[in-house]
């Protein structure tokens, strides 16, 4: 009897240990607090802490584009957030990616303050907020005041093309699954020229792995650009400051000189 109890106890301890050991993006032990409708409560202000917006693939540190800004605004190193390390481009698409990278400063939509698209908005480095209601979940992003509604209550296909896509969600146990279609071909994945076509289809998975952490995964499919679907994953962190709130970053005013400065009236000679 006593032995059996010990055995059970040992098993429980082992199970608890196994369950509490975080395995990247796969932790299923944590049960999130519930919303009034009984779903995992993902409300809050979240932010990625990585360099994926510079390059979702492996990248070493390098000189930034403005020599005068030296070490302050050079490009930080980072490891790939892509499962398997590399994006499976079709050969012609890989050539275009390289061309994009070479022309980053004239081509990256982020520089013009265009809405970043999904999944880039998630790891752009700015906070975003989840406002979770039973039928619709609002995701509001600090950059460019971009936003999207995740419809939990409809299956309608995308009625048009959108910078932030057309999002429909559902729950799979602890996980919020968001299916995003209806993209333009104008958004990028990062500042390294990684791109997609309007055939992009993203399936995101948000799972709480603790009170202040989410596991974020996105499966990316675009047969016009990639040879097979590929996946990124990363943790997201809750902004736990008492006064955490999204601030206003209407970046249009910082892109105007770049976009329209050449059309201004020249000062009289």
């Amino acid at each position, binding site marked *: 009897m006593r032995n059996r109890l010990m055995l059970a106890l040992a098993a429980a301890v082992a199970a608890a240990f196994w369950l509490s050991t975080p395995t990247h993006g796969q932790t299923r032990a944590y049960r999130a607090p519930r919303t009034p409708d009984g779903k995992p409560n993902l409300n809050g202000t979240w932010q990625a802490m990585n360099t994926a917006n510079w390059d979702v693939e492996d990248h070493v540190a390098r000189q930034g584009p403005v020599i005068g800004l030296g070490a302050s605004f050079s490009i930080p190193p980072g490891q790939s957030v892509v499962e398997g390390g590399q994006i499976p481009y079709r050969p012609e698409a890989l050539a275009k990616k390289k061309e994009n990278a070479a022309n980053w400063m004239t081509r990256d939509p982020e520089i013009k303050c265009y809405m970043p698209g999904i999944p880039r908005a998630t790891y752009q480095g700015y906070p975003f907020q989840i406002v979770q*209601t039973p039928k619709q979940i609002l995701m509001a992003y600090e950059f460019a005041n971009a936003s999207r509604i995740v419809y939990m209550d409809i299956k309608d296909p995308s009625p048009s093309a959108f910078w932030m896509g057309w999002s429909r969600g559902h729950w799979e146990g602890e996980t919020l699954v968001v299916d995003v279609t209806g993209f333009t071909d104008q958004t990028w994945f990062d500042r390294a020229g990684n791109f997609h076509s309007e055939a992009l289809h993203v399936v995101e998975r948000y799972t709480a792995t603790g009170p202040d952490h989410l596991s974020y995964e996105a499966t990316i499919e675009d047969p016009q650009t990639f040879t097979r679907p590929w996946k990124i994953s990363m943790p997201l962190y809750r902004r736990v400051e008492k006064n955490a709130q999204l601030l206003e970053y209407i970046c249009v005013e910082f892109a105007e000189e770049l976009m329209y400065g050449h059309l201004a009236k020249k000062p009289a000679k």
Partner: protein
Amino acid sequence: MLRAFAIAVASASLLTVSVAGQAPKPAPKPEPRAGAAPTARSLARARANNAYKVPRTAWGEPDLQGVWSYATTTPLSKPDAAGDKTFLTDEEVAQLAEETAKRQDSAPRTGDPGTYNNFWWDRGVSIGRTSLIIDPEDGKLPPLTPEAQKARAARQAYQREHPADSYLDRSPTDRCIMYHGVPPLPSGYNNTYQIFQTPGMVAILDENIHHVRLIPMDGRPHLPSTIRNWNGDSRGHWEGDTLVVDTMNFNDKTNLRYGGSSNTHAVERFTRVSNDLIDYQYTITDPTVYTKPFTVAIPMPRRDDRIFEYACHEGNHSMEGILNGARADERRAAEAAAAKAKPQ
């Protein structure tokens, strides 16, 4: 509201659409939106119905969630032509709608490429009042302070001389920086709010420029006055069944349509008076600009529709058109002056 989305792709600017040169589209028969007219009277009826119980969220707050429209052609300040009149009859509302539709479908002046036709606009109809301002009682914007009069005259004089020297001379609307403002005044389309509620947070998504207002309801103080925003900083609380939103911390460039300054203090009140109507009112206090506060009332009917992404800046071809047009005008003027100066 998908129609409005299409407009956003075609051209972003409201005040300058003449530059976009939209081809005229076949217009359907103008029809005032059923049930919307005259909302001032439905509002009075709903207010009188004390039996209405506002639905509650699962955690017990009044439930204001859904899509609501503040579209209306009723002007902010009562026009002199309205005299002492405050309310309009159904016939007058219908007639105004017809006149608006006709005006929107009429051919542009010579030399003006024109703008959207009546099919594209989504202005709503008159709420059945002669002004949106309900206080002061005369329905008119209060007099400007002497400093504001001077500042406004100087700005208007500057704008006449420099309508488009640079993007900086254009309005925040033309620049896709802010559109309806906080609190909003209706424009030609996308006068639509979607309200989301979670415990401790209310979010209001304005369809134009996909502007999200995140309103903490947890009693935290405003941002410090050193942080100033185009759209201010909002905090909310409940007074009975009414959502009260207090907004300040505007920057000095905000230029709201009613002409505020960085001292603008707005208090909005949202009261759901029936399943299909929110009594929406706000009071603006701005001692820098106005000699006394004023209160605006825009009844918001529910709209059984969705909000779509309004990509304003991403489709702002108008800005290039406006600036290019201004440079072309200057070249023509310079050529004409040179030709005139040339001895015959």
